[in-house]
């Protein structure tokens, strides 16, 4: 097994995860459709997972904490997507739109 550690430094993974997270933030702030906002949130969650796994594998490989955490992140992300899409469908049925700038009943 070729060692990854000597070939790819840890900071490359951190940079990748930082870029991915920033793109996700941009998507959340600039997208209009609620489903697309959810997709951007998925990108951010994945950036966090990369970060956790990279640190776990590089610094504490015998503990698996980061890997277990990444599994939980994926689980919660699945729950979040299911629930959020149900809410989006409900809002669409009641208001006829899924654009977050047109859902402004709480805006005062």
């Amino acid at each position, binding site marked *: 097994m*070729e*060692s*990854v*550690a*000597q*070939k*790819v430094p*840890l900071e490359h*993974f*951190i940079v*990748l995860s*930082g*870029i*991915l*997270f*920033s*793109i*996700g*933030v*941009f*998507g959340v*702030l*600039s*997208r*209009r459709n609620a*489903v*697309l906002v*959810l*997709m*951007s949130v*998925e*990108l951010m969650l*994945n950036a966090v997972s*990369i970060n956790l*796994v990279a640190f776990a*594998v*590089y*610094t504490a*490989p015998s503990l*698996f904490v980061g*890997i*277990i955490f*990444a*599994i*939980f992140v*994926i*689980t*919660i992300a*699945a*729950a*979040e*997507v*299911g*629930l959020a*899409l*149900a809410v*989006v*469908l*409900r809002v669409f049925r009641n208001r006829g739109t*899924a654009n977050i700038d047109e859902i402004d009943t709480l805006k005062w």
Partner: protein
Amino acid sequence: MTQIFFDLMAAIVILGALGVVLVRSTVYAALFLIASLMGVAGIYVLLSTEFLALVQVLIYGGAVTVLLLFALMLTKVRDLRERAPEPPQLAGAIAAALALLAGFMTMVYKTTWPRNVGQITPISFNQIGTALFNRWAVPFEIASGVLLVALVGAIVIAMQEEGER
């Protein structure tokens, strides 16, 4: 070799992510999301956590993106295209993302990263399973409870009510 594989996967992840946030067609955005998340699975393979790569492909490639596509279909996004954001909103989003990115890059640049961390030990399915069902058994059960409640709740929320069209 490993570095080339990493660069390739990173390019797929970042280009896919850019596609998700920039493409106007919502269905194409969902397809770009699949590409990006499969790139993340490649990164997991590179980190020798094959179990996570497998989970990533199954959950994201198989379940989450299909759910998202169904939601796009059911909400009848008008001609499947999004209007461009207003210029002030776009400027704000770009500024926030760039500020965050600059913060991350400064952090990476200023930190001294560990050198010669040695071999990465591939983590087998057995080890993860043992850890998950011994040390992390209680969080695991809580996570399964959360998933169950969330999905039942999703069904209840999405259900057609009496008198609704």
